[in-house]
C-alpha cells in the first residue's frame, strides 16, 4: 500500500526529533494510518536518529502497534479476568464465526478487524466489547454480531 510521504513526515514532525520521542511518534502514525506502514518506519528512523532495527523492535514489542493494515471498524473484545469468567470466550467465538476471521485478522473487504485486549478497565460490566471506541456492556454472545453490524 502506498502512502503519502509528506503526510508521514508531517505526523513525525509533531514530536521533537529526538530518540526519546520514538513511542509517541509510532503512536501518532498508528492513529493516523491504523497501522505502521513500512515507509513510515524508515522515515521515523531517519528523523529521530534511531537505527531502523530499534524502530522495528519497538513496533513489535508493544501490543498497540500493528505492522499489517487494519479494517475500517475495529472490534476489540476484552479478555480480562472478569470478562473471561463471564463468557468472553463465547463472545469472541461468535464474532469469529460471524465475520469468518480469527482474532487479530481483518476481513478481506477491509471492513472489520477483531482484536483482543487484556482488560480495558470496565470489569464491572463484563463481558465488554468495544466497537470503534463505543463500549458495549454485559454483551451476551448471541447479541455480539448484531451490535457489530449496527456499528
Amino acid at each position, binding site marked *: 500500500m502506498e502512502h503519502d510521504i509528506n503526510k508521514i513526515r508531517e505526523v513525525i514532525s509533531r514530536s521533537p526529533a529526538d530518540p526519546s520521542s520514538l513511542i*509517541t511518534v509510532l*503512536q501518532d502514525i498508528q492513529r493516523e494510518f491504523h497501522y505502521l506502514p513500512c515507509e513510515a518506519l524508515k522515515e521515523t528512523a531517519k528523523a529521530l536518529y534511531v537505527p531502523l532495527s530499534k524502530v522495528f523492535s519497538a513496533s513489535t514489542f508493544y501490543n*498497540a502497534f500493528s505492522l499489517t493494515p487494519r479494517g475500517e471498524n475495529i472490534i476489540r473484545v476484552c479478555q*480480562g*479476568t472478569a470478562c473471561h469468567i463471564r463468557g468472553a470466550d463465547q463472545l469472541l467465538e461468535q464474532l469469529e464465526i460471524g465475520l469468518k476471521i480469527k482474532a487479530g485478522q481483518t476481513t478481506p473487504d477491509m471492513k472489520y478487524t477483531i482484536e483482543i485486549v487484556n*482488560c480495558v478497565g470496565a470489569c*464491572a460490566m*463484563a463481558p465488554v466489547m468495544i466497537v470503534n471506541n463505543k463500549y*458495549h456492556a454485559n454483551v451476551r454472545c448471541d447479541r455480539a454480531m448484531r451490535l457489530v453490524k449496527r456499528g
Partner: protein
Amino acid sequence: MRVDSVEKLDRLRDDYRKAIDTQKKRIAVCLGPGCLAMGSDVILKEFKKVLADKKIKDVTVESVKKTGCHGFCARGPLVVIEPEGIFYTRVKKNHVADIVEKTLINGEIISKLLYIDPQSKKQITDYREIPFYSHQQRISLRNVGQIDPDSIGDYISSGGYSAMAKALTSMTSQEVIDEVTKSGLRGRGGAGFPTGRKWETCAGVESDTRYVICNGDEGDPGAFMDRCIMEGDPHSVLEGMIICAHAIGSRQGYIYVREEYPLAVINLQTAIDAAREYGFLGENILGTGLNFDIKISRGGGAFVCGESSALMKSVAGEVGEPRAKYIRSVVKGLRDQPTVLNNVESFATVPVILNKGGEWFASVGTKKSTGTKAFSLAGKINNTGLIEVPMGVTLREIIYDIGDGIPKGRKFKAVQTGGPSGGCLPEDKLDLPVDFDTLTEAGSMMGSGGMVIMDDRTCMVEVARYFLEFLVFESCGKCVPCREGLYQLYRLCTKICEGEATEDDLESMERLSKTIQIGSLCGLGQSGPNPFISTVKYFRDEYLAHIRDKKCPGGVCRKLITYRINDKCTGCLACLDVCPVDAITGKKKEIHVINTEICDRCGACYAVCTFDAIDIE
C-alpha cells in the same frame, strides 16, 4: 488566572463555595467506565436538553454535572440528586423527563428507580444508607463520583490544592517526608513499599535532576481503581505529585498512562492545562519558588511496563524491558537520575495525609498496613464496582456485606486478588483480614486491588491456564526461565484441561515453577507461576479430577464435558439460533435436543438460555 499566593487560593476557594448553593437541587450523572458503557452520556445530554427547555426556577442546565465513577457499577447508569442524596439506579433516557418533572419540580421520589436492599427488601432513597456505601471509608476516592473531573473549581472547592499550599508554604521538604513516613503509607501499586522511605532515599541522593513518576499503567486484568481516579479526580494525582516534587526537589514529573485508557489521558491533560493556568504547575508555584511541570507519557499496551524499571525505559522511548533490581530506581531511575515512582492511588492519598496528619492516617487500618485501600469488585458477584475500605477488613465483609454475595444463589469458590501475579484464595480463607502481609502469607497478594470473584461454575485449572496464557503473551522475553518456562507451564496446564495429563506432569509443573521463580529478573517472571501454585495448593482435588477421572468439576473444560437439555426447556429456539455448528434440533414449544456428536461445547447455548434448561455433565 494565576494564583500566586495562599491567600489568593483561599479567596478563590471561598468564591467557588459561595457559588454553589447547597440548598438547591444538583444532579450528578455518573460517567465512570461502567455507566458510560451503559449509555450515561446520553442521559447527561438529555438532562441538559430537558432542563434548557423547561426553564425551571433554581434548577438550570448548570445544575446538572458529570462525575467520575460513583462506584456502584452493577446498578448503572447512576444519577444522584443532591442535597438529599437521592440515588436513582439503572436510569434510562426516557426516565429523564420524569425525574425532572416529579423529583426536581414536585419533590417526589420515583420509587421504581430506587435501590432495593435484597436482604430487607426495603427501598433506600439516600445512597449513604445503602450497605454497599455504608461499609466503605473513602480517602483516595474521596472526590471520585462527587466532583466534575474537568472542573478545577470543583476540586478547589472540595478542599483541593490546600495540602499543596500547606506543604509549599509552611513545611520543609524533610517535614513533608516525615509526615508521609509517620502515616505508614505503603505503595498502592501492589508491592507495598513504604512511600516515606522511598522519598527519603531519593531526596538523599546527590544529584541536580530528580524525577517524579506516577504509574498509571494499571495492567492487572480485573483492576480499574486507578482508571477511575485518573478519570474521576485527576487533580488529586497532580497535587500528590507536586507535594512529592517539593519533598524530593524535582522539576519534572511524568504520568505514565496505559494505552487502553484514552479518557484518562484526556482528563489528565485537561487537569494539567488548568493547573498550569492557575500556576499550580510551571514556574514559581504559588509564589514559593518551586518549579515543577508534568508531562503525560502514553503506554504502548505492554503489561511488563507496569514494572518500574521497564516503565522508565518506556518513558524514555525504548522497549520496556526490566533490569536487575540491585540498581534501585530511587538512586538511578529515569535517564539514570534519582526517581520516585508511585502508583496513582498513592499520590491521590498524599494530600489527605498532609491535611489530616500522618498520625490520623496511621490510626485507620492495621498497624503494618495503614489507611484504606481501593478495590475493584468484578466477576461473579452481585455488586460489581469500585470500593474503598480500611485495611484489615475481612474478605468476607467485602464479598458479602459490600458485594452482596454471589449471583443466582450459586456457591462461592474462590477470590482472585493481585492480578496475574497474585493468587486464588478459597472459602476457608475468607475471614483473613485484607492487608499486605496477610495476603502474601496466604499465597496471594494485595496487588493493585483487583478482586475477581469466582463461583462453582468456574474451573480453577482453566483459570490457571488463562493466567499462564496471559503471562506467556506478556513476557518481554529477556529471561529464559520466564519466556520458555511459562510457556511449558502453559502447555502442561492446557494438557490437564484437555484430560491428557498424568500426575507426573503435575510434578513437573511444580518443579518448573520453582525454576521460574528463582531464575527471572523482574516481578512479572518471579511471580509468574503464582496462579498455578496457588490454585494447585488450594484446589488440588480439581487438578486430580481432570487427570484421574477426566472430569471438569466446574463444567468449563470443553473436552471433558457434555451439554444436555433438560425438561425445563420451553422450546424458545434461542439456543438453536445461536449454536454455531447447528447441533441443536427441535421445534417451537417442544423440548430441544443437542446432538453430542456434532456439539463442539462452545457453551453459547448455556449462555443464552434463560430457563436454566441446559445441564453440563
